[in-house]
């Protein structure tokens, strides 16, 4: 049992591993030490997370928190804190487990890389930031970790920074998510101003608890409630981080990083953060939907899907649902026309994250977290499988150049197929089916509109279709390049995580089936038999429909890519491309969103930059040059005076100056750096000692 008071140990462990990695010299046995400390820290974190989960499940409805004073500003105190409740604990277990497997996989994948020690250092840092985000009980602490996640993703996506594409992708990820983060930061400031606290739970005084929520029901002049406005701002951050439309553009480009990084970003760490955040602040998001007068705050706090009591004004969750539905469809459509194995998976992530947001938007946040957890496992499986393929095929990622890998890489094929079926939602045995079913069901029960439900159904067909296409192209048919002809199965360090993840991709679904919705009941803190909206068996039509749709998607995929015609050469056109070349080009170019942004926002910022530059150069620069000119003029007058009235003085001065310059250039600047470094170290040391004395 691990209470909230000590839960910070879990993020601390990988942080220490990252610190060890930082201070190791290059080369030698550093790689082994770095990878060993990273894996050990995650494994230990997993054990601690299981203890935390045990503690949280003992009383699922209670939010075990531990808060402490951080800063005093005059009369106000800023508090930070840690939390352990089922939501946090499930995330912890997932992140540490999937993270450990990805770390183990990386030891094989990054074997040839010269900077592997640094890579493990960044990975640990990434995991530490994500774990910190999950355990924080304060929106501020969460934001700090949130930004650290962003930094770590920047470092990892751009790990091969000598490749221009990787450097650009890292920059893109960083800047795009930053746009959303700005909204989140404004939301945090507003929330602090309106509610007076940034703690989630604080024995009745946190902003997710009754007393503060009451203060947020004020309606602004524009018709929005304060809680709606803040909720939407917070959602901006989640849109950026979780790759939701319209800030999804960074996510596919992030494929430029090493494949384990893609797995980490897409499964366990980065993109899950946005969904987690919205689930965490769900009571705030749902506040404007509750009929406080009729239901009281309990209705909000229990997280039940709420009836909408009034149709006036925009509701925060409605926006979340709409964005989620658009993203789900968009990702699925674009994934159909991609040729890069990792990009297909990337767009499928975009689509699946849309599903999760949709689920939160329609009020079923436990289902969203269920899908988040199952998705984490099967998406990590798929990415690591893709990594295994790429590693075996000498970094060939284009599915047109692969093919025929099934007999050569049996374990990878088997596990990848399991992942594909989980993602496609093949019924009953696979976890993805149950979580997706939950989302479809919740969307069907949404009282505002049925449109998201139908959108989600279309995305189901497309998901099954493009995953079938991927598996057929990569594993079946004929090997179409030298690389895929000579591919062979990878070392156990890489296949073992695949097998373990495959087991989870199957088994995890049974934690949340409608027959026994244990996971949802634990997340919501109410007994399983009281779970609302899980009468899937009472509405068999819905389930049958979705099974038929999945079968349709897989069937069409198999027909087009396996039975009717197999790809034999790399140059052969895709059947869909042949049928509708214009549409295919548009999809392959991701519906031109990058180009659109470049043409609008990019242009706009270019123009602003140009304007600022011109202003700087001509207006301010002119002014400064004028002043400088005056100075020069005065200097000239002075010099004339010097030369004409006092001969010789000037020559000596200039001689002096020249010598001084030489002296400066010879001065031991290296030493001065050392001095300043010592000074900073002295400062840090003093702080540490003084603070330690306080702690003792």
């Amino acid at each position, binding site marked *: 049992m691990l209470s909230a008071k000590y839960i910070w140990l879990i993020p601390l462990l990988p942080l220490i591993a990252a610190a060890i990695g930082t201070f190791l010299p290059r080369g030698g046995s550093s790689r082994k030490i770095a990878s060993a400390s990273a894996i050990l820290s995650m494994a230990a974190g997993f054990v601690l997370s299981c203890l935390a989960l045990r503690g949280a499940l003992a009383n699922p409805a209670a939010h075990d928190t531990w808060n402490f004073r951080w800063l*005093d500003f*005059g009369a106000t105190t800023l508090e930070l804190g840690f939390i352990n409740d089922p939501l946090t604990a499930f995330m912890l277990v997932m992140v540490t487990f999937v993270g450990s497997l990805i770390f183990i996989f990386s030891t094989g994948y990054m074997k040839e890389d010269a900077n592997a020690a640094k890579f493990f250092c960044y990975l640990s840092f990434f995991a530490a930031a994500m774990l910190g985000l999950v355990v924080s009980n304060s929106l501020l602490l969460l934001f700090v970790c949130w930004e650290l996640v962003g930094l770590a993703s920047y470092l990892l996506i751009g790990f091969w920074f000598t490749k221009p594409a990787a450097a650009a992708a890292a920059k893109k990820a960083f800047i795009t998510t930053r746009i959303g983060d700005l909204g989140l930061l404004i939301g945090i400031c507003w929330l602090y101003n309106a509610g007076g606290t940034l703690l989630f739970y604080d024995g009745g005084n946190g902003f997710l608890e009754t007393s503060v929520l009451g203060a947020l029901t004020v309606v602004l002049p524009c018709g929005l409630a304060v809680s709606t406005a803040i909720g939407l701002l917070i959602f901006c951050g989640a849109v950026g981080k979780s790759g939701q439309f319209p800030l999804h553009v960074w996510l596919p480009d992030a494929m430029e990083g090493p494949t384990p990084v893609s797995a980490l970003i897409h499964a366990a760490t980065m993109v899950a953060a946005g969904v987690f955040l919205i689930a965490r602040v769900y009571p705030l998001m749902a506040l404007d939907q509750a009929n406080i007068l009729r239901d009281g705050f309990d209705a909000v706090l229990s997280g039940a899907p709420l009836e909408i009591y009034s149709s006036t004004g925009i509701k925060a969750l409605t926006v979340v649902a709409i964005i989620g539905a658009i993203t789900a469809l968009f990702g699925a459509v674009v994934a159909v026309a991609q040729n890069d194995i990792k990009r297909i998976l990337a767009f499928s992530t975009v689509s699946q994250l849309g599903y999760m947001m949709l689920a939160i938007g329609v009020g079923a946040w436990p289902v969203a977290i269920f899908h988040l957890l199952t998705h984490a496992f099967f998406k990590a499986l798929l990415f690591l499988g893709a990594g295994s393929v790429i590693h075996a095929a000498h970094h060939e990622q284009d599915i047109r150049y692969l093919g025929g890998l099934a007999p050569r890489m049996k374990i990878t094929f088997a596990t990848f197929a399991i992942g594909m079926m989980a993602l496609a939602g093949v019924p009953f045995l696979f976890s993805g089916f149950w979580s997706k079913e939950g989302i479809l069901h919740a969307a069907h029960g949404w009282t505002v509109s049925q449109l998201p439900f139908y959108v989600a159904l279309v995305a189901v067909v497309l998901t099954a279709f493009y995953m079938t296409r991927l598996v057929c192209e990569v594993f079946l048919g004929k090997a179409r390049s030298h690389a895929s002809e000579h591919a062979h199965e990878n070392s156990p360090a890489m296949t073992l995580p695949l097998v373990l993840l495959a087991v989870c991709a199957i088994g995890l679904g049974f934690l949340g089936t409608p027959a026994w919705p244990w996971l949802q009941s634990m997340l919501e803190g109410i007994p399983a038999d009281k779970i609302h909206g899980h009468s899937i068996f009472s509405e068999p039509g819905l389930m049958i429909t979705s099974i038929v749709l999945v079968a349709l998607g897989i069937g069409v995929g198999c027909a087009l890519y396996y039975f009717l015609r197999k790809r034999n050469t790399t140059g052969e056109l895709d059947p869909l491309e042949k049928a509708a070349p214009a549409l295919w080009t548009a999809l392959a170019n991701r519906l031109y969103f990058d180009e659109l942004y470049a043409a609008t926002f990019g242009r706009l910022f270019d123009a602003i930059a140009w304007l600022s530059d011109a202003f700087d150069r001509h207006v301010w620069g002119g002014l400064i040059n004028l002043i400088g000119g005056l100075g020069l003029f005065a200097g000239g007058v002075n010099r004339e005076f010097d030369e004409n009235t006092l001969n010789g003085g000037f020559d000596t001065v200039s001689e002096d100056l020249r010598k001084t310059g030489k002296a400066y250039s010879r001065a031991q600047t290296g030493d*001065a750096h*050392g001095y300043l470094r010592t*000074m900073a170290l002295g*400062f840090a040391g003093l*702080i540490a000692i003084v*603070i330690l004395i*306080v702690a003792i």
Partner: protein
Amino acid sequence: MNATINYAELVYALRPEIALTLGLLLALGYDMAFGRRMSDCARRGVAVLIGIVTLASAVFQTLHTNVPPVGHAAYWFHGAFVYDTLAHGVRLGVFGLSALTLLLIAGSIPHSALRTPHFKHPAEYVAIQLLATMGFSLMAVSNNLLIAFLGFELASLSLYVMAGFDKTSRASAEASLKYFLFGGMAAAFMLFGFSLIYGMTGTIVLPEIARALAVQGPSPLLLVALVMVLVGFGYKAAAAPFHQWAPDVYQGAPAPAAALIASASKLAGFAFFARLLFSGLGTVSGDAINFGGPAGWIMAVIIISAASMLLGNIAALAQTNARRLIAYSAIAHAGIMLLGVIAVRAEGAGPLFYYALTYGIATIGVFGVFAAIERTAPCQRISDLAGLWKRSPFLALVLFVCVLSLAGIPPLAGFFGKFYLFAAALYLNGLMSPAGWLAFLAIAMSAVGLYYYLVILKAALVTNATAGTSASTEKIRVPLGTVIALATSAALTIALGIWPDVVLGLFK
């Protein structure tokens, strides 16, 4: 707060500073108008004379200021300035020390063909030194973080220029640059600390800060702010681990500049920080009397003090360069003075002021002797001092007195400085307090210090200059200004040792 601004009060408060400003303008103006037609020697003489007269008039203005009785203070200009015994004493002290270093200028001009002559622009040097002195004086009277920072920076910027004034010397340029880099970073730390304190208390006036902090009590942020302020303090005092600039600057800067940095600058720095720490941050000082009390700046000061004493004394043992040796001894002395800052709580600022003043006087004497030797022969290595008693008995005598005072031998002022300071520290709670143990360490380290001071004296008084060593045997002719300065330093070192109450009485 009263909204009207009483300029008469401002002028009254800043009369010495006004005198200094007028004097520096006069020095520059005279030099510009007439200086270039004069011989180098006369030009220098006039500039120094104007400087001395200016400082004398500043002293005169200070003496005609009403000093409140001990334990009381007058506040001027809405509490921006404070005037009490400490401010009074420090003003007089920095003016006097500044005048002594000005007199060293003449003595630090090489008259042989050793190097191209430096100090080509004596009026500028004097003007900048007067600016630095103004900064010290402002630090002495400021009662507000902004004025204090202004004074601190005015003094620092002037000292950077003075350290690099010898444009023909590579070491001087290097010293100046390092001093500047280090000082800039320290000032940045300190300003950050100030801004945090302002953020927490909403005021920049020291007593009001104390009141606000008494309500809030210590917090982690406050501790960070305190340590940031102490970085600035450590830099000004040349205390470890913020001391690295000192050896380079003491070695490279022109001797008068180094003397000023070691004397008046330290006196003003210690006075100012003692005021800041006690009247501004006194309510969060932590506990110097007992072990295990609440955290505050005292613990950090104790650490810096102990580190300085250990590092200064031990590193000084290894030096072969006389100026660097003095620099490391300065670090050790800074450690003792930091102990004095803690002991202010027991006995007031008297012992600290006395120590800093007498230390400054003795250091000026040592640098003056080095400067005078350098006129004919290099004076860097300790072995360069060999045979000094034959080359110039006067210089050897001054060095003897001043070095023994630095080492703390009775009946010289340095001994009584240490004595009063350790006594005050032990008054706190004997050996039951951290300060008591620190005093114990200081006494032990003073014994270590005696060794390297005696190494200098042995070189100067016992060793003969032989053909094998680099030391010259040429007789040294000491210019008049230097004679006056050195004689005054030596005489004061003896006299203040015999009659310490002349200074300490101010505080009683």
